[in-house]
């Protein structure tokens, strides 16, 4: 990802885009719709860096990134939120798990532009000051990790699971967390932590 050109869409890019759209008859009488975002009239974004808003952990941020930047790239490189980890970068390991509108997703397989206008939550937003989230406290209490690299993803997947299924069975915990690998294989303790957190709430 490159954030080196923060001025976004240039005037020339904008004119080129609107010209093409007008030519295709697409501008007339269409309202701006979106993923819940209040965007200006439709036009192509990029390929140079573009400015857009992201709402992360309850705060609005303006970022500048190329359209090809993933949500994970922007969280880590532009917003310095390095809790979500880049491991497989293919949506297979879960180390990058964050919540988007309350649902766990792989930030490595979502373009940052796809997260505009949505509530993004990362592991950095869980604790309130010094008070850990119940899931974080349960992971510590039950040693739900060894090396800790996958832990932010495991914690976020657990938070999403418990928000959807507050009192999960053992099978529901295993199914709910199946998208997160732990190379240390601390699975039993991770599942214990999830079960304990569900009772702590």
């Amino acid at each position: 990802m490159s954030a080196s050109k923060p001025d976004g869409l240039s005037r020339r890019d904008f004119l080129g885009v609107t010209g093409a759209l007008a030519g295709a008859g697409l501008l007339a009488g269409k309202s701006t719709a979106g993923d819940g975002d209040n965007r200006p009239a439709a036009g192509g974004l990029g390929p140079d860096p573009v400015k857009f808003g992201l709402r992360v952990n309850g705060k609005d941020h303006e970022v500048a990134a190329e359209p090809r930047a993933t949500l994970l790239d922007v969280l880590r490189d532009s917003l310095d939120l390095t809790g979500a980890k880049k491991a497989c970068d293919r949506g297979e390991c879960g180390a990058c798990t964050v919540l988007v509108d309350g649902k766990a997703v792989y930030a490595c397989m979502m373009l940052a532009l796809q997260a505009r206008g949505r509530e993004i939550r990362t592991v950095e937003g869980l604790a309130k000051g010094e008070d850990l989230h119940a899931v974080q406290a349960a992971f510590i209490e039950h040693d739900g990790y060894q090396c800790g690299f996958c832990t932010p993803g495991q914690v976020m997947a657990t938070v999403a699971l418990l928000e959807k299924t507050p009192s999960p069975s053992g099978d529901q915990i295993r199914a709910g967390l199946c998208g997160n690998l732990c190379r240390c294989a601390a699975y039993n303790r991770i599942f214990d932590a999830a079960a304990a957190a569900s009772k702590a709430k």
Partner: protein
Amino acid sequence: MTSPFTFWDARTAEEAAALLSKKGAMALGGGVDLLGEMKEGIRAPEHIVNLRSIPGLDKIQKTDRGWRVGATALLTDIADHADLRKDLPGFAESAEAVATPQIRNQGTIGGNLAQRPRCWYYRAAEFACVKKGGKGCPAEKGENRYLAIFGDGPCHIVHPSDCAPMLVALDARLFLRGPDGARDLPIADFYELPSKNALCEFTLKPGEFIEAVEIPTALPRSTYVKIREKDSFDFAIAACAIAGKIDGDHFTDARVVLGGVAPVPWRSVTAEANLRKNTIADAVEPASNSATDGARPMSQNAWKIPMTKAAVARAIRSFLPR
């Protein structure tokens, strides 16, 4: 890092079709499959057209023809839809069988149906195989453990979708939108064998995309059984979708469609015939055994034949009274 592209938010289906008519344009639903291809360097779209910005394209609704599910409906929302599950249990099961919660939370039904194969020769930029416009299939003399036992080449991928075989069994229709308007077709006709077109598993004209799928409720009993090598999450080694009608102890109508064993969802009419002419209990053996009639395994994948029979047998047994 993928190659650069211009990103477009489509606001209507018509606008999406116009944008997708640009050279090098591709549709974006959840993006999990497309981004994976781009990261492997086997796909480099110049334009990406976001379909999730089209209001209402993610609707799941009951109509007088059955259920209509918009292309950008999330797999999670299909799996969690209680009323849909009541009418179409197998469809909900197939959506729930896809990958992981994270992928189902982002992946759309349109993307699931139009996802590209997982064959490692296809996914690796180093191999100029027939599916990528090159020559031959490196798997024929290479690693073919997970590949097709049906279809006879020249490309031996297995279709990766869980929902596609189930929707073929349920007689679903796909609604497509393109620059020349809308059309619809039986979902079975959407998929093509490599002998007809090795480059792509499905037929979309330039600028076309999936707008919705409609599923009739005429076959009220259905199930989807998936066997994986890694049970926590994986693509299917073999899968079986069954949809039909049951009267007492036997099926009066039945569709049996296999997944994970052929380049397209693979209907087994011999298994269907065996399922119809026996009681459910007596059909397990003949129907599951005949499901692999005509299979031609490659050098390393004959083990998928008993796996396929097991998937069919499990699917049939699920209809027995407990």
